[in-house]
Each structure stands twice: as structure tokens, then as C-alpha cells.
């Protein structure tokens, strides 16, 4: 019996009925299994909820905080669709942060929301709502990080993101995942764009044991556009798992997606994406690109880019590749006198640069380059060890 009962939900502050109803629905539902297509390849069957109890992440907010509230008065704000039981669980136990940008307002500086997670057996449920009014503009960066010295803690993070972009609103969002090496994260992200709005949903995932994000970007208003970019880099025994949906529900809408990942050691990654173009979405353009680098023997990468198109006035493409570092690029660098391990590094960093340059990360971008580079160093060292071991 897990600790995520309606009674436990009742103890949380605010909207008791709302929480209890969600917890009841969760209790009545079954946990998903990899037999379901949307959970295929995942490690969901290894999740043991009884090892966790509801907790709270310590959340700090930096940047222009005028529009941020941590206690929204209206639970209806969270009455979004729940794509799976984890979104339902989040509803029962969530700690909300609501960003409401008034019409016409341009928030120049990014709002940075940082969730620090600590304590073995803790499950946390951050929920971020970005409600951008007509013709407003906002950039939000959400960081999930393990508290200092708690990297080995076994925690569970179940975040939900809701983005609502009203007419002509511009929303940029970046999630940075650097949770502890034993932490599980199962997230849901949803965005809805009204007429002529623009949304960017970006993700950088480096941490965690099993990290999954399901991102659904719906274009509900004519002329709206959305873009999803992600960088993921899994090492050791990590698994990074992404499910994306680009849902074109209005004419003349545009979507683009670029997911680039690397796997090393015995890590695994999954990318499955769907472009859905509904019958009335004429004049639509949708693109989807997934590229994977396999850096070690024993690493796995799955890539399943799907299309479901119900009308003909569209331009739609997807591309997906899985492979090792390009030998010719490596050869070129080596022929210029660059040592093999540095050449490999440069190629990987160059591979990720395409994503990093598109992130709404500002000053954080250099930091992220550094993190990727450090993670590469770790494998570099391991390889070096192997080499010295072999020669000894």
C-alpha cells in the first residue's frame, strides 16, 4: 500500500476536495506498464511507490517575481487534462507556482524557479503554471536539482508544467534536470497556444536514474507556432525517456522539434514523438528531428518518430538518426594534430551546440556547456583507465 492515499492528500494545504478527488482517482487507477505503447521501452515496471512518501521540494524563485504566486486561489486553474496517473498524483499532492503575465506586458528578464530535492524516499510534486496574457512575453527557467551532498538519495519527482499562451503571446520555457543519480523523475508538460502565439519548450536532461518527460504542445489558434528542443546525455545506468506530441488543431500552424541526445556506458535513451495534424489544420507545416549519438558499447537508443496526418494541405517531415561519432569528423580533427580523445569531445560538444544555441538559457548556457563537458570527461577518464589497465 502506497502512502499516496486520499487521507494523505487531505493533509496538504489548500483545495482539500480537489486534492482528495484526484487522490481517489489515482487510487482507483492502475499504474501503467510497458505493455502500453506510450510506456513501451520505459522502466515503469521497476517503480515501487511504496518506497516513497509525499514530501515537498524547497523551491526558490529568482528574477522578476511580480507576477509569481505560490498560492493560487482557484483550483480550476489546475483542472487541465490529465494524460496519465502521474499527472493525477501531482494534482493530489502538488506544490504550485503560478506565473500570470498580464496582457501586453513584456517581462524582459527570465524568471528562474529552482526546486531543490533532498531526502531518501521523498516524493515531490512541483507544478508550474505559465499563463501568458494577450501579446505578453515571458521566459521561465525551471531547474530540478539535488541538494548538495544528497546525490545518492533515492527520490521521486513528478512535475507538471502547464503553459497557456493567449493570442499573440510569446512564451519561452526551459527545464534543466540535474536531479540525483538515484532519483526518478516522471514529468508531464502541456502547452496550448492561441491565435498567433509562439511557444518554445526546451529541456536539458543530464541527471537522474530514470527520467521521463511527456511533452504535448497543442496549437489551438490559427497562425500559432511552437518549437520543442531538447538535449539529453545519459551515462552509467541512466535512462532518459521522452515522449512528444505536436498537435495541430487549427489552420496555418507551425511546429518544429529538435531532440539531440547521447548515450554512453550502459545508458539508454528513448525518443518517441508524434506529429498529429487534424482534419481542419490546413496550411500546416510540421518538422521533427531526433539525432542520437551512441558513445559506448552497451548503450541503447530507441527512436520512434511518428506521423498521423488527416489532411493534405500540409508540409510535414521527420528525420531520425542513431549512430557513433562521424569517423570523418574525427579523422579531420586528428589530421590537424588534435588528440583522439579531444577530437571526440569536440565532435560531441559541436553536436550539442546546435541545441544549446537555441535554448532560452541566457547566462546559463555556458554553465550547461560546462556540465556536458564534465560528463564527457568522466567517460574520458574511464576510457583512459581501461587503456592503462590494458597496457599494465
Amino acid at each position, binding site marked *: 500500500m502506497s502512502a499516496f492515499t486520499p487521507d494523505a492528500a487531505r493533509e496538504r494545504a489548500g483545495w482539500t476536495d480537489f486534492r482528495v478527488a484526484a487522490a481517489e482517482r489515482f487510487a482507483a487507477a492502475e499504474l501503467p506498464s510497458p505493455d502500453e505503447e506510450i510506456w513501451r521501452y520505459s522502466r515503469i515496471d521497476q517503480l515501487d511507490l511504496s518506497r516513497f512518501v509525499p514530501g515537498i521540494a524547497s523551491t526558490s524563485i529568482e528574477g522578476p517575481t511580480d507576477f509569481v504566486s505560490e498560492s493560487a486561489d482557484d483550483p480550476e486553474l489546475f483542472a487541465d487534462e490529465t494524460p496519465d496517473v502521474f499527472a493525477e498524483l501531482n494534482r493530489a499532492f502538488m506544490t504550485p507556482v503560478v506565473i500570470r503575465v498580464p496582457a501586453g506586458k513584456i517581462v524582459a528578464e527570465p524568471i528562474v524557479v529552482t526546486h531543490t530535492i533532498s531526502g531518501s524516499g521523498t516524493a515531490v510534486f512541483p507544478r508550474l503554471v505559465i499563463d501568458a496574457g494577450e501579446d505578453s512575453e515571458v521566459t521561465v527557467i525551471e531547474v530540478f536539482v539535488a541538494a548538495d551532498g544528497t546525490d545518492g538519495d533515492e527520490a521521486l519527482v513528478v512535475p507538471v508544467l502547464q503553459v497557456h499562451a493567449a493570442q499573440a503571446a510569446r512564451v519561452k520555457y526551459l527545464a534543466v534536470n540535474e536531479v540525483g543519480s538515484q532519483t526518478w523523475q516522471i514529468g508531464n508538460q502541456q502547452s496550448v497556444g492561441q491565435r498567433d502565439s509562439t511557444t518554445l519548450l526546451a529541456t536539458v536532461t543530464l541527471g537522474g536514474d530514470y527520467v521521463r518527460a511527456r511533452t504535448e504542445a497543442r496549437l489551438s489558434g490559427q497562425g500559432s507556432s511552437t518549437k520543442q528542443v531538447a538535449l539529453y546525455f545519459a551515462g552509467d545506468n541512466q535512462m532518459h525517456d521522452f515522449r512528444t506530441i505536436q498537435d495541430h488543431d487549427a489552420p496555418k500552424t507551425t511546429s518544429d522539434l529538435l531532440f539531440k541526445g547521447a548515450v554512453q556506458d550502459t545508458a539508454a535513451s528513448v525518443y518517441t514523438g508524434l506529429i498529429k495534424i487534424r482534419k481542419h489544420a490546413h496550411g500546416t507545416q510540421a518538422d521533427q528531428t531526433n539525432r542520437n549519438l551512441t558513445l559506448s558499447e552497451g548503450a541503447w537508443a530507441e527512436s520512434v*518518430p511518428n506521423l498521423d496526418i488527416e489532411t493534405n494541405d500540409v508540409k510535414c517531415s521527420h528525420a531520425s538518426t542513431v549512430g557513433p561519432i562521424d569517423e570523418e569528423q574525427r579523422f579531420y580533427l586528428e589530421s590537424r594534430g588534435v588528440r583522439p580523445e579531444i577530437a571526440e569531445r569536440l565532435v560531441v560538444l559541436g553536436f550539442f551546440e546546435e541545441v544549446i544555441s537555441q535554448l532560452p538559457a541566457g547566462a546559463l548556457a555556458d554553465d550547461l556547456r560546462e556540465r556536458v563537458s564534465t560528463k564527457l570527461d568522466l567517460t574520458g577518464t574511464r576510457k583512459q583507465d581501461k587503456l592503462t589497465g590494458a597496457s599494465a
Partner: protein
Amino acid sequence: MEWIDGNIGSKLTMKYPAVYLVGEGATGEVLSVAYAGEGQHQDAGAKMVHAAPNTTSKIVSKSISKDGGITTYRGLVRVDEGAKGAKSHVECDALILDEHSISKTFPYMEIGERDAQIGHEATVSKIADEQLFYLMSRGLSEEQAMGMIVNGFIEPITKTLPMEYAVEWSRLIELQMEGSVG
């Protein structure tokens, strides 16, 4: 091993030729054309399992849907651990001839070998107005022009066929296109 697959008839087709590449250096190729007209659903594709080193495979799928027909590409490329130097390329293009027709693509890729190069690409579109306009400006009827464009679209596959079959194919497509107004 080369498999050329054409699906024109039947109400519902579900066909996925599978090629297991178990010997070193083996090559598999599936070329498939599907046409779905009114009330038809062509659910076709291919499976390529790379179970040995230096195996290569190629899948080319071209599908056309019209009058509410549904075409689906459903395929799997799997590279087992140890299948070093495996290479695979998948290309699936879909042409949707009217606004009632549907096209879906479900390509699965499961890669367990570092030293494998796998690529997939797909495009879905309608017949470009420019192409249609060009041909009609040369005096072809709309119907003839569309038939010609569709034949050009599947040309990469028909050209691999022996002459007699190729001619038959292109006649068949023309026949299917008859009475269409775009």
C-alpha cells in the same frame, strides 16, 4: 535479399515483410508502394533485424492516399548488440491527394550497437501546385498531370522492376487516377 512489395487492392492490408540478417555482410532491401483509395486502409512496412556484423539494409516506402483512403507505414529496424558496422536507411514518403485522406507513419528503431549507423526520413505532402500548374500549362489535363506526378513519385521503385511489370504498374496507377479531380 530484395523484396518489392506493391499494395493496391483489398480493403485492409496489413503486411510487414521481415528480413533477418543473420550472416555477416548480408543485405536486405524492401521497396514498397501502397495506394489507398476509397474505403481502403493500406497498413504496410518492413522489419529489418540486424543480427550479424556489417549487415546493411534499406527500406523505401512510397504511399499514396486518395478519396478518404488511409496509408500507414509501420516498420522496425533493430540492431542487436554485436552487429558492428550495421547500416540501415529508411525512407518513407507519402502523398495525400485530397483533404479527406490520411497518412500515418510509425517507424521503430531499436539500436543496441554503438557502431551502427541508422537513419530515417519521411515526408508527407500534397501534390505541389507548381508541378500541377507547369504540366497543365503544357496542355495536359488535370487528371493526366496528376497521374504523371504520381507516377514520378513512385518512379524510384518502379524503375527497379522488370519492364513489363513497370509498365503494368504505371497503367494501374493511371487507371486508379481516372475520374479524379484533385
